C-alpha cells in the first residue's frame, strides 16, 4: 500500500495530478481537490507522476 499526503495549505487545486492518477485525485464541482490517501502498489508510477507534476509540490508519498 502507498500512503499519500497532500498539504492542503499548499494545494492550489490546479488538478494536474488528476490526469496522472485519476483513481486517487479528482476536482470536485467547486474546483477543489479531493483525494484518496491510499493506493495499491501497482499505482506507484502514477502516484509518483502526480507528485512530479504538482505545480505547488504539495503531494508527498509517505514511505
Amino acid at each position, binding site marked *: 500500500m502507498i500512503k499519500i499526503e497532500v498539504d492542503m495549505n499548499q494545494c492550489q487545486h490546479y488538478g494536474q495530478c488528476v*490526469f496522472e492518477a485519476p483513481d486517487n485525485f479528482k476536482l470536485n464541482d467547486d474546483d477543489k481537490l479531493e483525494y484518496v490517501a491510499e493506493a495499491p502498489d501497482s499505482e506507484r508510477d502514477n502516484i509518483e507522476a502526480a507528485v512530479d507534476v504538482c505545480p505547488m*509540490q504539495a503531494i508527498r508519498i509517505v514511505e
Partner: protein
Amino acid sequence: MSEANPAAPVVIVGAAMGGLRAAESLRRSGYSGAIRVVGEELHPPYNRPPLSKEVLATDVTHEAVAFPSRAEMGDVEWMLGVRASAVDLDAHTLTTDDGTVQDWRALVIATGLRARRLDFAPVSGRHVVRSLDDAMGLRAELTEGARVVVVGSGFLGCELSATARKLGCSVTIVTPSAEPMVRPLGEMVAKEMRRRLTEEGVEVISGVTVVAINGETAVESVELSDGRVVEADVLIESVGSECNSEWLKGTNLDLRDGVLADNAMRALTTSGVARDDVYVVGDIARFPNPMFDDKPRRIEHWNIPTDTGKRAGAVLAAWLAGDGSFDEVVAKPFTPMPSFWSNQFEIKLQAYGLLGLASNDDIRILEGDLGDQAAVGYYRDDRLVGVLGVGMKAALLPYRKQIAEGGA
C-alpha cells in the same frame, strides 16, 4: 568519431528541474551505471514558479522550494557551482570553468535559459528573477512604500507586480506591448487582464520602451521612449530570456533558437542526424510535438522540463541497455500536453495546449463571462489548440481532452 569510454558516466549538464527529471528517469528505466549532474547554481534542484509568487511574498529559502530527493537518486553525483564551458562531441568530453575535462558516455543538455537584461550601466536596485538568489535579493528591497517599476508585461512581470503590490509597494508596469500578456493570451483576454491589474492599483504604461536608467549608483528613475520619467527605487527587468547554449558552440548541433532535438529528445546535427548519445531537455529544447504538428518549437512552460526529462531518460536508458528495445522506445510518439498557470491577485489563470498557435486571433469564449470566470478557446483552422481558464479549473478538463485528441 572515437568510441566513448563505456565506463564513463552519463553527464547531465544543468541541475534544475529538467536535469533532475532526466536523472530520475534514467534510474527508473533501469540504468544503474554512473550519473553525474553538473550545475552552475550551488543550490540542488528547486521549483522556480513560487519565486515570483507565494515564496517571494513570504519566506525565500531553498527549503521552501526544493524538490524532494528520491531514494533511487542516492548514488547520483552532483557537481554544483561549476559551469560548462565547452564540449567535444567527437572526443566525448566536457570542459568546465574550473578547468576540469571529463569523459562522458552520454550527454544530456539541460542548461535552460537565463533572464535577458536591459542594456544599461549596472547600478544597484536593478533586478531580474530567475534563480533563488535573484528572488532573495529582490525580496529584501520590496519594502512597504517602495516604488517599483516592472519592465515587461509577460506572466512573470505581471506576477511580480502583483506580489510587490501585495507587499505594499507602489507598482508601475512599463511595456512595449499594447496590453499585458497580449502575446500569449490575445487581445481580448489581455484587455481584461489590464482592467483587473489596474483595478488592483498597478499602473500600466504600454507601448513604450525604457531609454535610460537615471541614478549614479542606485536606480532613481527610468526614462521612457515617450519622454515620461517614472521615479523608481526598484527596477525589475522581466524582458524575456536567452538560451544557455554558448558552451555548445563549435559542435555540429543545430543551435538556432535553443538546441534542436527530435521527438525522442535526441540532439540533431545541422545536417539532421540524431545523436543516440546526446539528449536535450527542458526549455532549451526545440522539438516537434505531434499533438500539434511536426514543427519543432521551444516551449517555456513549467511541465516541459519534467516531460522532456522523463522522455530523454527513458530513450537514453534503452540505448545504454543495448537490449534491442531502443528502436521501439524511440518510435513511441511523445506528445506532452503543454500547460501553465499564473496567479496575480485574485486572477487565477490556467491553460492547456499552445495558445499562441491560434490563427488570426481566433479566440472564443467557451463558457462563462470574461469579466468574472471563463473558459476561453484558442483555435487554429477551426481546431482547438489551446484552452485558458480564467478562474475556472475542472471545466477545462473536457477541452484539454479535445486538444489531446487533435482539437476536432
